[in-house]
């Protein structure tokens, strides 16, 4: 028989730690936005992001994407450290011991509270060695700033670094669909760099995400 008294002793009755209303707060006197741990959070406007993209495009031309990807890699590394600390402390467990369902929910809610859009992890190609990440309403998809190509390089770099740390395997990330090009969502494929290499020309030729996945599935 289940004892409710015993169940109540369990500290794992968790709700949404990243609920924006309690996770983020403004210290308006000092002009700061902080998270629940007192770490500074920055609100960046669309104009600021466009200006960074345009400035990079102007200075380094076609390498702007690569620069943004590398910045994303650094960001993802630190972001993973912060995320791991917060989630482990909330669950009083190491990240590796937290159930995938809860972990995936934490990632989704973290994204949402930071205004990075709605993220979904798709494990349909997990057995083949790929993780698909879908993000809707990404702030990083900037139309026409980097030319006629998927523009979420910063995000792709961040995802590659974040999931590399999470899986303890070096993963690359390539964006296959972008809201800035009229798609209804941004899709990213994560996997070993060697296995993802062949799809780069397909992305450049504007091959659809489903055709790219079919190609990866067969190769």
């Amino acid at each position: 028989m289940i004892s409710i008294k015993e169940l109540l002793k369990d500290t794992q009755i968790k709700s949404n730690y990243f609920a924006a209303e309690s996770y983020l707060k403004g210290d308006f006197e000092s002009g700061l936005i902080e998270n629940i741990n007192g770490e500074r959070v920055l609100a960046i406007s669309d104009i600021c992001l466009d200006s960074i993209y345009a400035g990079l495009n102007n200075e380094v031309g076609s390498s702007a994407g690569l620069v943004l990807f590398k910045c994303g890699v650094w960001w993802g590394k630190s972001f993973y450290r912060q995320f791991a600390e917060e989630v482990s402390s909330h669950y009083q467990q190491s990240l590796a011991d937290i159930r995938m369902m809860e972990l995936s929910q934490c990632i989704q809610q973290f994204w949402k509270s930071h205004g990075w859009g709605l993220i979904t992890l798709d494990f349909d190609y997990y057995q083949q060695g790929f993780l698909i990440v879908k993000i809707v309403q990404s702030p990083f998809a900037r139309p026409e700033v980097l030319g006629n190509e998927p523009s979420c390089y910063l995000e792709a770099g961040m995802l590659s670094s974040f999931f590399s740390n999470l899986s303890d395997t070096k993963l690359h990330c390539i964006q296959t669909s972008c809201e800035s090009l009229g798609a209804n969502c941004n899709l990213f494929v994560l996997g070993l760099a060697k296995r993802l290499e062949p799809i780069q020309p397909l992305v450049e030729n504007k091959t659809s995400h489903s055709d790219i996945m079919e190609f990866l599935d067969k190769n």
Partner: protein
Amino acid sequence: MNIKIRELHKKAEMHYLEDQELDKIGNYVYLLSKKTEIYKIISSQEVDIFQPIANQINNIFTEEEPEKIELALKYWISILRHWNMALITEDPNYIHEHVLDWLIPQIKGYQISILSNKIFSLLQKSLSKKLSSVQYSFLKPYIEETENNLVNSNIQS
């Protein structure tokens, strides 16, 4: 805090509050004291509310894994705690942000929708017995919100 009361904050730069606006605050404080009573009834009877539910669920779902039953009960213990907090804070987004958006995918993912819906129905019955009809009506908006978003979505899926 109640949104209508929070909106009154902005009026200070224009004028002192009028009688009608002060009545709103008085009414809010009066209702808050009533809601605090409900909060105390439920929080002091958490075990009494859930133990009979756990027993009935055990008898109905004899083939179900005990871990899943425990998980579903924990989710509903959490939901009831959040209904109660939403009652005090009067924030319509509270239960969405804190529990519904959080638990809906988990209940689906762990395939405990049928179990969860049964606990919801037993919990409703239990609360309607523990609370007077007026007290129950205070909780009703949150119960209905949960029913529309969590329970009905389980039925559809």
